[in-house]
């Protein structure tokens, strides 16, 4: 190869290639992060339920609707009949409520878009965390301030483990109630 070609290669091509590689890795890392840890996912829901209104302004407790969160593994999305407890009368002329009542009366399943999901091979247990005094907002964020619920924290195994390992740092007020969370596999992976 002659000198001018080598010069072109080293001064122009090589930095360009290196830049392209680094740029694509960085871009992929950041673009794929939401897929990897789900942060920021805020989908539209079939009924525009507002936690800001219900949990924030009206201060309805989380457990009024998400009933089994302190009894079983699942937090559960409330059944439509829970909504109809109030909304059979309250604001029943509003279009969203009419839509809701239609679901209820015609027995159509109400397909909420799922936001927080831990993979199926990990058996997360809500009641253990709730019964130890950990607030809902520690993982789900300030839901009572969310018009539309979105995922705030990363739900990768690494983030679960980091909280388990730094439990006393993250929850200094619960220092006497909680130990470090389990780090062994079968706590979640059965």
């Amino acid at each position: 190869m002659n000198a001018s070609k080598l010069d072109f290669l080293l001064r122009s091509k090589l930095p360009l290639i290196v830049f392209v590689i680094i740029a694509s890795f960085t871009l992929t890392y950041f673009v794929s992060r939401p897929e990897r840890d789900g942060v920021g996912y805020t989908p539209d829901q079939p009924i525009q339920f507002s936690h800001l209104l219900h949990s924030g302004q009206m201060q309805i407790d989380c457990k009024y609707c998400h009933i089994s969160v302190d009894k079983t593994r699942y937090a559960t999305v409330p059944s439509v009949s829970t909504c109809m407890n109030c909304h059979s009368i309250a604001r029943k002329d509003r279009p969203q409520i009419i839509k809701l009542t239609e679901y209820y009366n015609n027995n159509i399943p109400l397909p909420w878009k799922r936001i927080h999901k831990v993979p199926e091979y990990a058996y997360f247990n809500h009641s253990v965390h709730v019964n130890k005094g950990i607030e809902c907002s520690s993982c789900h964020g300030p839901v009572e301030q969310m018009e539309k619920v979105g995922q705030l924290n990363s739900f990768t195994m690494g983030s679960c483990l980091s909280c388990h390992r730094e439990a006393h740092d993250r929850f200094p007020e619960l220092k006497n109630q909680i130990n470090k969370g389990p780090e062994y596999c079968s706590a979640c992976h059965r």
Partner: protein
Amino acid sequence: MSENLEKQSLDNNPDPNYWRSFKELYNDKETIEKKFHEFEKGVTDEFDPNENLSGLSRRKFLALLGASAAFAGVACTDYRDKGEIIPYNIKPEEITLGKPNFYASTCTGCNSNCGILIKTREGRPIKIDGNPDHPVNQGKICSKGQASILNLYDPERIKSPLRKNYNVFSETDWKSVDDDIINVLTNSGSKEIALVTHKINSPTTLKLLNDFKNEYPNTKIYSYELFNDSIRNSAWLKSYGSGNFPLINWNEAEVILALESDFLGADENRIENSRLFAQSRDVDSKKFNRLYVAESGMTLTGINADYRLSIRPEHQLEFVLGLISELKKKGVVQIPLDFNVNIYDLAKKNNLDSKKVDYLINDLSAKKGKSIIYAGNSLPEDVHIAVNLLNEILGNSKLYRKDSASVDVLPISNYKDFEELVNKIKNNQVAAVIHLNSNPVYHLPEDIGYKEVLSKFENVFSLSETMSESCQISKFILPINHNFESWGDYKTRTGIISLSQPVIMPLHNSRQLESILLTWIKKDSQSYSDTIYHDYLKTNWQENIYPKYSTSISFDKFWYSALHNGFISFTENIDSNLNFNYGAVKFENIQSSNSGFTLVLKESYSLGDGRYANNGWLQELPHPVSKITWDNYAAISHSTAKSLGLKDNDLIEVQVAERKLRIPVFVQAGNTDNTVVIELGYGREYSGIVATGVGFNANKLLSKNSDYSPWIYKNVKISKIQGKYILASTQEHHSFDIPREQDLHLKRHIVVEGTVSEYLRNPAFIKDKHQIEHESVYTPFEYKEVKWGMSIDLNKCLGCGDCVVACNVENNVPVVGKDQVLKSREMQWLRIDRYYSGSPDDPKISTQPMLCQHCDLAPCENVCPVVATTHSPDGLNQMTYNRCVGTRYCSNNCPYKVRRFNFFNYRDHFRNGYQENPVFALLNNPEVTVRSRGVMEKCTFCVQRISDARSEAIRQGRKVKGSDVKTACQDACPTSAIKFGDINNPEEEFYKYRNHELGYYSLSELNIKPNVTYIAKLRNIHSEEL
């Protein structure tokens, strides 16, 4: 010209001149020509670089490739979409998502009708456990009960009524079928309406049938059971004048003699029998009974015998009378006898060990009034009468239970009644034959002619859950509800009526059998509603049962509490008039003659009378003795096989009178010579994809007349025929002939055994013989909190296999099929190993449940390249399925070989994806991962139950205790041989088993520190040496 060329070449050659041949040197034209072509002629003739090119250049192709890859990648769906989450519209009040509900009900797998608790999750039943309050089974249920849940979700259940047109079944609706049948019934005139059913145990169903009879006066009920205790009961009637054969207090017997009786195994009431029997084989109270078994084939009871005598069934009468004669000779009993049989002559003639006979006689004499002799259901009446006599004169009638006895709601019919039915059909005197959840075409002996006559008879209606042989010849097939979708009541004991309630609305368009009958009684197909039988049952209880039950609470409260508990119990007087009728003692033909073999037909341990043939878990449950899955076989003894030149898997033809059966042979150590033992319940046809074609239908050998008993035939001929049939066994024989392999399990300390006398003399004898403490390379981990461990008491373990099926149900273990079992790929996490020692004619059998030992220094954990298996701080060996790549190094390293690998996605692989059917998926336990291809699995000590117990403990604000957790196998074991708990807690019951003086670890010299303690089996024999 060539000269010129030559000259030219010589002149024009460069310096130096290289030539490869003379031809080249002299510039032969052809050779020069060849130099310009790289290849010989013909080699590249078809190669034209420009010929087969597509219009696409390489560059364009690569560009397209890249573009389509990018396209595909981007076109993937929204990767952040996590699907939907759909709540109930109206949540049923009793359901808390994630928490199971329990419903008390009754099992209808056999005629014991044990009480069960059905565990449901979100409205789906997923597990059956025994009802702890029920007095008969007290919290335990057998393997058939455990696996019966699979029958609820059977993808081959009949989903809607079927009508036969020109030999093809087509779906139809209830109204048309009901109308047609009501039409036939109302126009029956004076012709008989035959209802064929299994034994009726339900008082309300009986009342319903009586109402049916009132409506259709020519109705006749034919009930039958392939295996029944009618001979035993008729002998009792002759001996004592009234009542049924009593229940036995096995726990008070110090000597038990079982004659051709599998009371711990396939014979009925085995849950109660096992529990009571195991109560007096207790290392804690140092109470040991002695079990003598005199039988022809090796059975589960024979495995657990202290002394076993191998005797042909036709000599049993002589044997019993010999015992009586000998006892009289010794002065132990004083009664006038008109027979005198020398038992030692019998022993000599039949190669029985006379020493064992001595021991037996001495024990019976010494333990007068504290022993029991029990004859099996298949023996003829005179043997039963002789046994009743023997028990009476020894004073063993003290062991007959006076608090409870078995009752028959309706006595069963016999073969004569069926013969009459067949004749009536031939003579056109029958309007309709209705099969009520029964399968007489398969079960009845062929010489009654039932199948032939009914195949030509038009009005055959079958009410059944699945297709069967009887359904195949029917005109209408009506699907009925499974037991878990049905209401019912059952009375099989005095003082107890069990209830069954549905836990799920019918999955398919089926109806409860009794509701269908009610519609026909009302003669109106529109009168059906979901609740008609519920109302009928409730009304019957209100009118007939509640008034007799002395209580002050209202009927509704009574009804709800009965449903809640699953049963009601009350005092009912038993006719305990035990005056033996010595006039019945008249024995003819004491010596039996037999010109050939004896054929013994037994009930299958796992399939019952064949009704569970379509149940994959039960087909794959290994036979307790032979460990064969998926087939039945003809078991013959070692010497018989040698004399006939037969080996395992050879085909033979068994001939009884005119009836023949082709079946493979299995050489069973311990069987009597010249005897063939075959299990019934196999060889099903039209019964579903799992059942059809499995095994051999030995019902062909049954006859309405037998020269001995309905299940035992003499003068049988065996002949070898061409061909082999490979039987799939999960465990091979041990070779009795190779000295190196003999007693391998004892030499290698896999199983450690002793005798009662040695234990009583020196309680620490196990520790003296075996414990070797080694040092370890690893620093020991300190288990400060709960550390889980298990102990299995081999004195109580019978080897029945209930724990195996319970584990299968709890942990979603797939069925793999016979071809995979042949490759040793069965997926059961828990297995019962069975070892032989001694001689092939009189072997000693040891059984040992083997599961993951959760070793502290587990050899599997070190070698996983991806760290998919690790150890938890509470002592469990954890398996992380999503990390496993399928190296199988862990299984390679496991000395107990308890790790099972998913070579296929067995759910998709078995019988064309039978287990992938969506109905089947409802059965899965949602707390346990359903494993796919390529991952290793093993026993997890029910980690899902441990996690739930921890979660519950946290909810209650306390620490988790060892006694909070009961593993599935522990729950299921009828003798409570398995104990589980925290080894660090000295206050628990488990602690004393963990540190028991008889406790040992299997293969302890490997120093891998397993956590399953086996309590050594002690045989109650006279010597200290085994």
